[in-house]
């Protein structure tokens, strides 16, 4: 929504494609942030602005079926409520989000006293009576994050745990809250809330990957043991509520990544062109990235990244044209047999096989070609030339550089 508004305010038409029946995504189920922002208010205000803006076309209940083309010249086929729709556009912003993983650890789903932080927030806001009576609450951090199968940190869960702990303390100061953590990461200015939580009497117990907490049901009580890293001893707790900080995981992005011909990283999130130098670009021109689809992050970080994506997208479109490099590839249709190897190997999706009168042939997308030459050196039929770096030109250099030829032995 933020990206759409940014683009619209700069005078560009845009289509906002949402798979659910309502806009907002994860934001619909968040109520406050650690700094005390009113998230539902933000959601309502933003939605109002989006619907009020004449340049933004909102498609809800929509799915992307196919995306063809290249920067400045994309055509997307949507299925909106089952009906087909075509949309022509110059750039793509990928902001498909992520979700909270449903844990299979710590008796989640088996005992109603085990919740995720998301569940907890929902209950605090809408069903306080269900947890208001809980006197001993244990929160476990890094559930499903920072483990061999999922080595990344989900970034926001420490802040969320502290947020919810403070909220509970506010409403029920007598509650005993213990947070089991591996590393406490209320980073930046949010460190002060961690200090506040400690002042209010929230306990923090550090544990290690090789001695994870053990939660059992010893009817009717929950029995939790954990090895306190500082004490060096096993601590036993009998919580009446266990809250898991579950990992943020990507949706199944395989299909969309294939359609856009952009890469996913080993964790399933979209992979940006360069972590430091081009954090919201993809290697393929004209496609940009923001939000949880890229990596777990807070609401303010999502907003900042959306603004960045808008800046990059509008920079790409503002001139009204794309300057093509002179050192691009060119396919000789007489030699090309349409095998598609070049299309597979091109890192920029800048060459593709198309139907011609003479059958399938490869064709360079001049706007996207970076002139690396991978296609040319790989083509089995030697059908591809790179302007200014052709085989002939390079061979001639080899001959010229030898200088005085050696005597034949």
């Amino acid at each position, binding site marked *: 929504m933020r990206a759409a508004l940014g683009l619209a305010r700069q005078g560009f038409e845009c289509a906002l494609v949402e798979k659910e029946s309502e806009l907002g995504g994860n934001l619909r189920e968040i109520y406050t942030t650690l700094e005390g922002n009113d998230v539902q208010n933000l959601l309502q205000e933003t939605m109002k602005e989006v619907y009020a803006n004449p340049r933004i076309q909102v498609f809800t209940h929509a799915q992307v079926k196919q995306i063809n083309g290249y920067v400045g010249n994309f055509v997307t086929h949507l299925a909106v409520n089952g009906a087909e729709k075509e949309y022509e556009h110059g750039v793509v912003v990928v902001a498909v989000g992520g979700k909270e993983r449903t844990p299979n650890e710590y008796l989640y789903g088996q005992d109603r006293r085990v919740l995720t932080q998301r569940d907890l927030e929902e209950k605090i806001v809408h069903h306080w009576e269900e947890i208001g009576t809980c006197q001993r609450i244990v929160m476990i951090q890094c559930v499903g994050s920072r483990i061999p199968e999922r080595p990344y940190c989900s970034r926001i869960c420490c802040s969320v745990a502290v947020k919810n702990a403070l909220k509970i303390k506010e409403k029920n100061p007598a509650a005993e809250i213990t947070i089991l953590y591996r590393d406490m990461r209320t980073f930046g200015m949010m460190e002060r809330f961690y200090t506040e939580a400690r002042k209010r009497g929230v306990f923090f117990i550090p544990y290690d990957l090789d001695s994870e907490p053990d939660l059992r049901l010893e009817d009717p009580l929950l029995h939790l043991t954990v090895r306190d890293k500082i004490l060096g001893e096993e601590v036993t707790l009998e919580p009446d509520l266990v809250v898991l900080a579950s990992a943020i995981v990507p949706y199944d992005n395989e299909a969309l990544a294939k359609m856009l011909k952009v890469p996913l990283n080993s964790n399933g999130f979209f992979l940006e062109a360069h972590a430091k130098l081009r954090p919201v670009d993809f290697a393929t021109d004209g496609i940009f990235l923001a939000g949880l689809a890229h990596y777990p992050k807070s609401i303010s970080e999502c907003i900042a990244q959306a603004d960045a994506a808008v800046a990059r997208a509008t920079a790409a479109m503002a001139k009204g044209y794309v300057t093509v490099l002179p050192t691009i590839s060119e396919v000789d249709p007489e030699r090309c047999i349409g095998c598609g190897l070049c299309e597979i190997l091109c890192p920029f999706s800048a060459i593709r096989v198309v139907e011609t009168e003479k059958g399938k042939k490869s064709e360079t997308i001049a706007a996207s070609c970076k002139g690396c*030459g991978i296609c040319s050196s790989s083509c089995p039929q030697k059908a591809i030339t790179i302007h200014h*770096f052709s085989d002939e030109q390079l061979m001639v250099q080899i001959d010229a550089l030898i200088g005085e030829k050696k005597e034949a*032995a």
Partner: protein
Amino acid sequence: MNFEPKILSFLCNWCAYAGADLAGISRFQYPPNTRVIRVMCSGRVDPVFIPKAFLAGFDGTMILGCHPGDCHYLTGNLQAERKIRLTGKLFEMAGVGSARILLDWVSAGEGERFAQVVRQFVEKIKQLGPFVLDPDTKEKLDAIRASLDGEKIRWMVGKGPELLEKENVYGERLPGAKIEEVVEGTIRDEFIKNRIILLVESKPLAATEISNRLNLRLKDTLSYLVSLIGDGKLGFDASEEGRVPRYIRA
């Protein structure tokens, strides 16, 4: 003997060439034996340039690109690594050896390292001595060149990464070692077939003559010959009388 090697280097524009430039600006001393061809990416280096370099008279060939993971074009250097490694294997199979081919990574800030890489390679070539282009070696290089030019090796080398990472058209995931085995087998076959074609170009030869010349078992030679006839690249010499068939270029 004062042998001064002549070395051809392919430097990628963004890293290696910039590194070499930095070496120059920083006045790092290195021997003047390399002749530089600038390419945009090490991935541009077509394997066929390497036998061409030796045929032209160079004593060594060096390809320098960006460090893995840092390629300006993302995967160009990884493709180069694969192509040139397999080219090296072909040179080994041919009996020419791959010691005179160097593939290394130099970043734009590594001026000192560029100088060092050149120093080390020039020293190595000095030790190996001049590259002797006798008729036998020339024949082998021509065959190598024809093989690297041919669609079969180019297709197999190019398809490799996809087959290693994903499934084939039957939905099977083949083990990496098996794929490499098949690729290397194909490279060897292509090389021998190209040698046969070049041999019979000068004069018609019988299977036993080819077999002796190439140091192959007659059985293997015959399978190659059958394959080449099937490809339409070899034919029979109609002019010769006698019982022993002689093969010619088709």
